[in-house]
């Protein structure tokens, strides 16, 4: 019994010694941590960035979705560099990015990408970088790689027409597209109309409708639908303004509400439920 008690006591002392050592070591570690945090605070990193050391690592991380990852990277890189706060170096990186990716784009399997990218590049920030110059450069490189593809010339005309409101250049590009073998007949009349009536909504509507009818890219299609809806809204606004003007002229005072126009049978239905039905 006495031997067992002595052994237990010895064990307890040993345990207490080990526990004390553990406590001292842990205390020292925490003191060191507190000291290091006070003396060497790491500067905060403003954003979470994931760095890859090489293309092979990126390819493995993509899990087979290489093309999708490449497109997402391309879009994010351009949006980032197009942000108003982006430094000049980032802006020049955008140009490099476009140049380095265009050669591949011009080859037949990637022609749809050119259509998507020239719209994306032309859209103002934050929808895109607002770089119509790069969109035109992209299309020019596409034409150089595939001179028989009239769609590139038409797209260049589109960029001049819609985003730059440069109707003379737009007409020149439409005319150039119409001269390429296989181009549709209406491109010639489009060139003439653009030159004569540049900026009118009907021409714009025709361009966007043609794009909507011919593209199979979801983003481009949605963008075309949005633009067509905007053009229709502009038409509706004009019609309503004209209606209100005529009402004011006939009654001596402008209407106080849409209901007044509906009650007078100048407008069919309420503004909320039937915004597009005008009676006169």
């Amino acid at each position, binding site marked *: 019994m006495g031997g067992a008690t002595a052994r237990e006591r010895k064990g307890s002392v040993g345990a207490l010694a080990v526990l004390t050592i553990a406590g001292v070591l*842990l205390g020292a570690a925490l003191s060191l941590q507190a000291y290091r945090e006070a003396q060497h605070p790491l500067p905060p990193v403003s954003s979470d*960035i994931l760095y890859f050391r090489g293309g092979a690592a990126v390819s493995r991380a993509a899990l087979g979705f290489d093309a999708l990852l490449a497109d997402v990277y391309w879009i994010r890189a351009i949006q980032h560099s197009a942000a108003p706060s982006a430094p000049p170096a980032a802006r020049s990186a955008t140009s490099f990015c476009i140049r380095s990716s265009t050669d591949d784009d011009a080859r037949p399997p990637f022609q749809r990408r050119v259509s998507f990218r020239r719209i994306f590049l032309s859209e103002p920030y934050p929808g895109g970088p607002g770089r119509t110059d790069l969109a035109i450069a992209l299309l020019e490189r596409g034409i150089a790689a595939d001179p028989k593809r009239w769609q590139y010339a038409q797209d260049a005309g589109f960029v001049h027409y819609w985003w730059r409101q440069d109707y003379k250049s737009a007409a020149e590009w439409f005319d150039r597209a119409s001269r390429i073998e296989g181009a549709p007949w209406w491109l010639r009349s489009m060139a003439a109309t653009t030159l004569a009536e540049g900026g009118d909504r009907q021409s714009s509507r025709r361009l966007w409708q043609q794009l909507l009818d011919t593209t199979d890219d979801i983003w481009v299609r949605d963008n075309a639908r949005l633009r067509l809806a905007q053009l229709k809204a502009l038409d509706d606004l004009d019609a309503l303004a004209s209606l209100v003007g005529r009402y004011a002229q006939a009654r001596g005072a402008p209407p106080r509400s849409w209901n007044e126009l509906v009650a007078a049978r100048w407008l069919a239905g309420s503004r909320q439920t039937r915004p597009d039905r005008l009676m006169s």
Partner: protein
Amino acid sequence: MKSAAAAWLGKALYYALPNLAPFDVKAAVVHGQPVSAAYVGLTAGYGLLYAGAMVALAILVFSRRDFK
């Protein structure tokens, strides 16, 4: 943190659990921020002391186990 108890608990956990973040200096390196020798020494010292404390606790726990 609004609750004082939660703040205290968070702080206790922060010190009790191993703090491995200071060992990762990738972000500082890629941003061109210097990592001093003193920082490396203090961090390595913390790692050794913490590991020593954990080994001591493990000795304490396993010395009382009967593995026969």
